[in-house]
């Protein structure tokens, strides 16, 4: 199932590194290892892996800086591992360009699920690369026709306000990636005032009401409390 994806694991703690590499090996991924930030950058540029799993607290630097440097030349998916509970660190990493985050301790299933989501995004991006810009987005029962600015669920048109539509498109184009509150606010409303966050939540609630089969248990838009939202791929 892993189709020979190559994953770079950057983690200074030997036990956690072993846990992650063993898990990934068992599931058929090819794994490279790095212990420091500089080693990570070297591996990233020389090996060109398909995905990086990156610990934020590295002995010779901050993982956030690694992401920033990486993003200068590559858009490969990055999943951040963090022992810190603080939302601010996660948000900083996501804003720097990380796709997803995992807080230690995490379960093995959780890790594998996140890896799958990230790789699926990669696949999709590769499939679209070079081709014409995506005009129709399909995800489960949800369908967005970008050219007609029309959203349907199970073939039925969903009426969205302009802000809801913008929000949905933004999430859809980044399916699988966690988008922070700040990012969403900036992209949709052009502002990042903390006071606007409550309106963002309100729009998210109304949007969910329109597209989710059960808004109490959202299938499409996942909430990351204190961090942001993510569009999930629904089969």
């Amino acid at each position, binding site marked *: 199932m892993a189709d020979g994806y190559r994953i770079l694991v950057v983690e200074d703690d030997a036990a956690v590194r072993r846990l992650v590499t063993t898990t990934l090996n068992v599931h058929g991924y090819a794994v490279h290892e790095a212990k420091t930030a500089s080693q990570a950058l070297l591996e990233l540029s020389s090996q060109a892996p398909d995905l990086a799993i990156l610990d934020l607290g590295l002995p010779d630097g901050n993982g956030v800086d690694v992401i920033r440097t990486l993003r200068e030349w590559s858009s490969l998916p990055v999943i951040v591992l963090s022992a810190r*509970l603080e*939302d601010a660190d996660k948000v900083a990493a996501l804003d720097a360009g990380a796709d997803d985050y995992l807080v230690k*301790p995490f379960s093995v299933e959780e890790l594998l699920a996140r890896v799958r989501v990230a790789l699926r995004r990669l696949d999709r991006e590769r499939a679209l690369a070079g081709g014409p810009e995506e005009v129709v987005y399909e995800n489960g029962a949800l369908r967005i026709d970008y050219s007609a600015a029309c959203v349907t669920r199970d073939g039925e048109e969903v009426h969205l*306000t*302009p*802000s*809801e539509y913008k929000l949905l498109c933004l999430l859809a184009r980044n399916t699988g990636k966690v988008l922070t509150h700040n990012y969403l606010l900036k992209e949709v409303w052009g502002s990042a005032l*903390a006071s606007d*966050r*409550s*309106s963002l*939540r*309100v*729009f*998210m*609630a*109304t949007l*969910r*009401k329109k597209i989710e089969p059960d*808004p*109490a*248990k*959202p299938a499409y838009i996942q*909430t*990351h*409390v*204190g961090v942001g939202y993510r569009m999930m791929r629904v089969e």
Partner: protein
Amino acid sequence: MSETSYGDFEMRRDPDAILKQIVEAEAAEGDTRGKLKIFFGYAAGVGKTYAMLEEAHAVRDKGFDVVVGYIEPHTRADTMALLDGLEQIPPLEVKHRGIKLREFDLDAVLERRPQIVLVDEFAHTNAPGSRHKKRYQDVEELLRAGINVFTTVNVQHLEGLNDKIASITHVSVGERIPDRVFDEAASVELVDIEPDDLIERLESGKIYVPDRARTALGNFFTQKNLAALREIALRRMADRLTRKAEHAEAGKRVGAGEDVLVYVTHDPGIVKAIRTAANMAESYHGALTAVVVDSSRSKRLDNEQRGRLRANVDLAEELGAHVVTLFGDDIAQQIAQYAELAGITHIVVGNAMGLRTVALGREGLVSRLMKLAHGAVIDAVPIKDLPAQYGRLREATGFHPTMGDVWKALASVAFSSAVGLAIRDIGLSDSITLMLYLIVALLIATKADGFLYAVVVALGSTLAYNFFFAVPRFTFNAYGLNYPVIFAFLLMGTLVTSTFAVRMKRQAESTARRAYRMEVLLESSRRLQAANDLPSCFRSTAEQVIKLLNRPVVMYRLDDEGHLLPPEVHDAPGTSGGDSSSDKLTSPEEAGVAAWVASNSERAGATTDTLVNARCLYLPIRSKDAVFGVAGIAIDGNDDDFGAFEKNLLLMILDECGQAAEQIAFANERRSMEMRVEKETLRSNLLRTISHDLRTPLTSISGDADILLHDDGALTKEQKEGMYRDIHDDARWLVTLVENLLSITRIDNGTMQIAQQPELVGEVVHEALLHVDRRAEARRIDVNIGDDLLMAVMDARLIVQVIINLVNNAVSYTPSEGRITVSAREERLVEGGARVRISVADEGPGISDEDREHIFDLFYNGSTGKPSGKSGDFKRGMGLGLSLCRSIVEVHGGKLEVRNALPHGCVFSFTLPAVDANALVSEARRQDEGRTEEARG
């Protein structure tokens, strides 16, 4: 966790000891005041400025940062040549009545912040509109800002020597500095030159003198004068050294010596008495007390007299006096009593040369004092100011003619005469008429204000009696030997009775006034003691000040960094207190004055010497070491001032406020210290309990892992699986514990600094349910949130933790077939607003009353130590979890409650402040539609 607790062990000491240490450390740091060096001369031209500039060059060569703040421009050429190579701050050009004045630029120097600044002419009086009236005040501000100052001054500018020198030279100097400033200077260098050389210099034109003053100065620069001045200057230098030594010894010059009291009036001549008294106090090594007696006559002082009184009191304060206001009409008695009580042995009064004694045949103040003040030495300083003396005479006798008194007197006479005539008609004796005159005069006297009434009524009664009743009637003639005697008695009788009546009335007034003020003061005290935070302390003070002065008060409080908080204007009741007037009182200029007062801890504004153009008088509210705020009292125009007594009382109230504020600050500091200690204790208890609780799962994990590692194939598959599951479950339990501990540190790191934001309750509950115990999977968890848009203000992470803990707790106590319901709904509050109640209900056995009391205690696992009933498959309770939940909810301003549900089970619930999401939605819709319109247009 362990690191912090060991690292913070030091914190677990007595908070008082820590506090004391901090205060001491601050005090040690606090000596940042600049040092003052004075170049001191006995006359103009001795070369003070030259010496100062030379010294400036010397210190500059040593590497100090020296700038020239101000040098008199007309000094001689070789002095000016010394300016080369020194950085100069350009003087400020001030226009006053069309004349350009060059002034020292205080703000430029404060901005420049050199190590040393040179400021010539210490005693200079600044141009009107400057911040301070006097240059020495500028210098004091520089010193407070930590800048060292070099300055120059001549001996005749010293306040305390003013009279002495004036009597020698016959030149009175208007520009004076308080002796205190001179004595407190870090060093004084005497610039000395032989008088002969000085005269020679003057004659050879080396001393700059304006032409018109040349002759006058010629008379001044005589060998005799200069020698005398030189002697005074040298002696003053010597004095300064002894005074300085005493200061250093005693810290303050109070105690051992003999104390001196001076009676201060508005008389301009009294300054002489004040200076004499100050010099006496200095030489006796005693404290100086200036006494102002506030009598019923004081309120009749006109503005000019009030101004003079204030100036005299200020002078006394400048000279180091402690000002006391006494109340009563008998000045001598008041002074004598105070002196006796305070143990003051020297009383200095200005003596009016007995004029009053001559004019009225009454005892003078001095002789009254002689009689009343036993054991004190009375020093009478002659006062020469004659015009003022007549004023004093008039004032002292209360001889203020008012038309009202005349009319009252005439009415009294007319009434007595009319009744007398009626009595006479019914044939009663004339002696009754005489009594009548006396009684009516006495009765109406209680309504009169002054002694004019007494005089008019006495004369009028006598004349009227003569006219109407004395034979021959209806003439001013009288026959018979009796009449002159009767007239004399009537005159004296009415005069004496009415005088006494008037005086009694005044005394009653004065007593009432005093009582009222005492009441104000007592009330202030009481209210300030009751105030338990700074805002209420300031509010009470403002109210009391308004009660006392009946004028608007502006209160500024200082924040922790010493910046002014926005002012609060308190208007006097009855005044409209329109916005425009309070705007004027809080304009940026006014706030600037207040800020100056706060940072310098000195009064400023209207009626003071500093920043006099302000609309308010600003006084610092301070304790010994700290300024807590500034009170501004609105003053209308420069003539408007309140009495010395009110001022005294005002200062007392503000002082009291400062002390109360200090108490509050101390209490706060103490409380936070205690809280820290308490928290520390809590933390170490927590740590102990946790490490104990950690052992159990760790034993199981490491034991199981050990067995599995050394397994030689003896274990069955089921056994192995059981061990794997135990390891996994125990690890999960540890994870929950760690999450909870992290949450605790989140709250502890700053109890109130949690990041609260409006969040959708649905999202939060959903997120929480993703993380609940895996064992919950077996139970049914219902979510019941009526409104998708239900929003509440919270720190989402922490509330997620609360819900996780509550649900986990419910899971532990619910049999596997039981149901758990998480619900949220909005509650409207009676007092307006709304809150969201989130509750978690289970169908477990419920909680006994005994357990309910302790359920939120740390690590409480139920009364039996183990969960009861069917849920016994869980070995550990959620003690930490519930205690944490309660803390988190409390930090959010809510309360975590638990009650039993029917038929069984229990419900945990808590509330959070609600956000009106519907309003947000409609607002968002409106914005959205606006955008749509835009897009279409």
